[in-house]
C-alpha cells in the first residue's frame, strides 16, 4: 500500500459513486466514458493491490494479515463483477450498481489504510 495511491483510489471511487448517481437521476444507462472510467478505477485499484501484495511477500506484516489480504482481493474483484452485472440490463439502475461497487471500494480502501500498520 502506498498512501498517495490509496487516497487516489478513494478520490476516483468517490467520483465514480457520484457519476453513477448522476446517470441514474438523469435516467440514462452508463455511457462509454463512464464504463471506461470504471475500468480506470479498476486499473488503479489493481495496481494498489499488487504493490501491497509485493510488500507483504517482501516481509511486511500488517496487524491483521488475513483480513488485509481479503480486502486487497476484494477491492480488485468488485468493479469487474459490478461492471458485468450493470451491463446485463442497461438502464438507470446500472449506474447505481456501479456506484454501489465504487462505494464499497472506497470504504474498503479507507479500512485498508487503517489496517496497514505493522504488527508490533
Amino acid at each position, binding site marked *: 500500500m502506498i498512501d498517495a495511491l490509496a487516497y487516489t483510489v478513494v478520490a476516483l471511487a468517490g467520483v465514480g459513486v457520484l457519476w453513477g448517481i448522476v446517470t441514474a437521476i438523469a435516467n440514462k444507462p452508463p455511457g462509454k466514458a463512464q464504463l471506461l472510467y470504471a475500468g480506470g478505477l479498476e486499473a488503479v485499484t489493481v495496481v494498489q493491490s499488487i504493490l501491497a501484495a509485493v510488500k507483504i511477500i517482501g516481509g511486511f506484516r500488517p496487524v*491483521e494479515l*488475513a*483480513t488485509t489480504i*481479503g480486502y486487497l482481493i*476484494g477491492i480488485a474483484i*468488485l468493479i469487474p*463483477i*459490478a461492471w458485468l*452485472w*450493470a451491463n*446485463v*440490463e442497461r*438502464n438507470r*439502475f*446500472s449506474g*447505481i*450498481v456501479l456506484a*454501489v*461497487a465504487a462505494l*464499497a471500494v472506497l470504504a474498503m480502501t479507507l479500512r485498508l489504510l487503517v489496517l496497514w500498520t505493522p504488527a508490533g
Partner: protein
Amino acid sequence: MRGVRAQQTGSAGRRTNSGAGRVLVAVYGIFALAATARAGVQLITRFEEAPLAYVLSAVAGLIYIVATITLARGTRASRRLALIAIIIELIGVVTVGTLSVIDQEAFPRATVWSVYGIGYGFVPLVLPILGLAWLWHTRPHAPQPVEGRG
C-alpha cells in the same frame, strides 16, 4: 408476451432481478462477500475467542449468499427461498443486534450483525426490510393455474 415472460422467469410476477432489483442483488452480493470472508478469517485465525459470534458470522454469510443467488435468479422457486433467507436474515440481525447491545460478553468481537450492523452503516438492518419490500413489490399478480411452471 405473457408466455415469453413466463418462460423467462417461471413466474407471472415481475422479476426480482430486474430494475431496482439489480441494485438490491449487488448490495446483497457485497454483503455475501464481506460476511463470508470475515467469518472465514475469524473461524480460521481465532475461533476460540468467540465461537458463538463467529459461527453466527458464518451463518450470516451463508444467508447473504442464498439471498444473493435466489434474488439474482428470480424464478418462482427461488423467490420462495429468497423469502425464507431474508426472513431469517431479519430475525438474525435484530436478535444478534439486540444481544450484542445487552450482553457484550457473548459478542466480544464484532460480527456483521453486531449492534444492528453499525460497522456497516446499519445497512444490514435496512437490507432485509428492503428485500422483503422488493419481494412484495414484485409478487405475482394473480394465482397461477395449477400446472407445471413454464
